[in-house]
């Protein structure tokens, strides 16, 4: 995707700038962009290292497995078809917990494992099953407890309160995850 978008962005803006006489500004913007990447990366380096370290402690304990327990009733509602399967259930809930904790690196492999197990149960192998559909939709709408990237961006830009948007982020992603689940449930029913 970016192989197309990236050159288009640059070419279009350079041509536009030449015609509107803003070439000077393009020059300054290139170098100020580089500067802000470096600045942001320094903050990111700190935030991500700290958070990855803390989360590595969590991975080494049984915390994720303990949290998975709370997901049981929810999974029964979300994935009625495959709820009986203990292995899939565990993989799905591990993926959800990892997503919530912001463990992107751990969440994707877990999610892929869950997808593979669900594919084994899938009757039409070229089409998404209901459970897979729900699983992907939930993954695109995942709630993140600590949005580290946003906090890093905000503090690199000198915000007075970098963590201020945590609760709004929770509320907003909770709204959307509820809507998305209901829509998916509805469409699955209609699709039958």
């Amino acid at each position: 995707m970016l192989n197309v978008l990236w050159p288009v962005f640059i070419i279009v803006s350079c041509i536009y700038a030449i015609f509107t006489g803003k070439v000077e500004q393009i020059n300054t913007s290139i170098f100020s962009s580089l500067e802000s990447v470096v600045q942001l990366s320094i903050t990111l380096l700190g935030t991500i290292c700290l958070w990855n370290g803390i989360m590595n402690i969590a991975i080494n304990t049984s915390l994720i497995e303990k949290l998975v327990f709370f997901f049981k009733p929810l999974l029964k509602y979300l994935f009625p078809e495959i709820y009986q399967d203990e292995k899939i259930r565990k993989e799905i809930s591990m993926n959800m917990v990892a997503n919530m904790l912001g463990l992107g690196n751990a969440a994707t492999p877990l999610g892929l494992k869950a997808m593979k197990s669900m594919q084994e149960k899938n009757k039409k192998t070229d089409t998404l099953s209901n459970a897979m559909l729900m699983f992907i939709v939930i993954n695109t709408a995942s709630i993140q407890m600590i949005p580290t990237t946003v906090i890093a961006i905000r503090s690199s830009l000198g915000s007075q309160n970098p963590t201020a948007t945590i609760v709004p982020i929770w509320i907003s992603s909770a709204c959307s995850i509820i809507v998305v689940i209901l829509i998916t449930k509805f469409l699955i029913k209609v699709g039958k």
Partner: protein
Amino acid sequence: MEILNYISSCAIPVTILVILIFGLYEKKNVFDSFLEGAKEGISIVVKIFPTLIGLFVAIGCLRTSGILDAIISFCSPVINLLKLPSEIMPLAFLRPISGSGSMAIATEIMSKYGVDSQIGLIASTIMGATETTIYTIAIYTSAVGIKKTRFVLFASLIGDVVRNFSCNTYLAKFVVRFFLTKYNI
């Protein structure tokens, strides 16, 4: 609003506290685990650095050449119907497609309009509350060789719209009002 902000500030310390206590309770070498994870963090940042350089430059060009503003004002009649501030739109569009691209544009928006301004706060909320939807769908479906994805894209994009909408309306106003009174900005 005091409570909302208090919970926000508590989120990080409480998470760290719970994890540390849990680690100690299970008698793990907490600091060793920490170091191991933190070291991994370095390579994550190093890995995304080139992407960020490329995309920040591209987005910066789009912004300063004036073409982004031209596109925004061209689309604004439609955007106004959705009651979204049009400055946010580039982020709302790019967010489902590219993670680092949206980081670039969110940073650009926040530094132009101010991190703690209304638009800055809305941009932060969108950035934190949404995922790179299309990318997520792509890796999960292609990994198991699925071709027919039914309505997964539709449902996910509805979620994105809901999120952008909820970020933009009531929530944002609450936060902004709080900020303005607290810091007398």
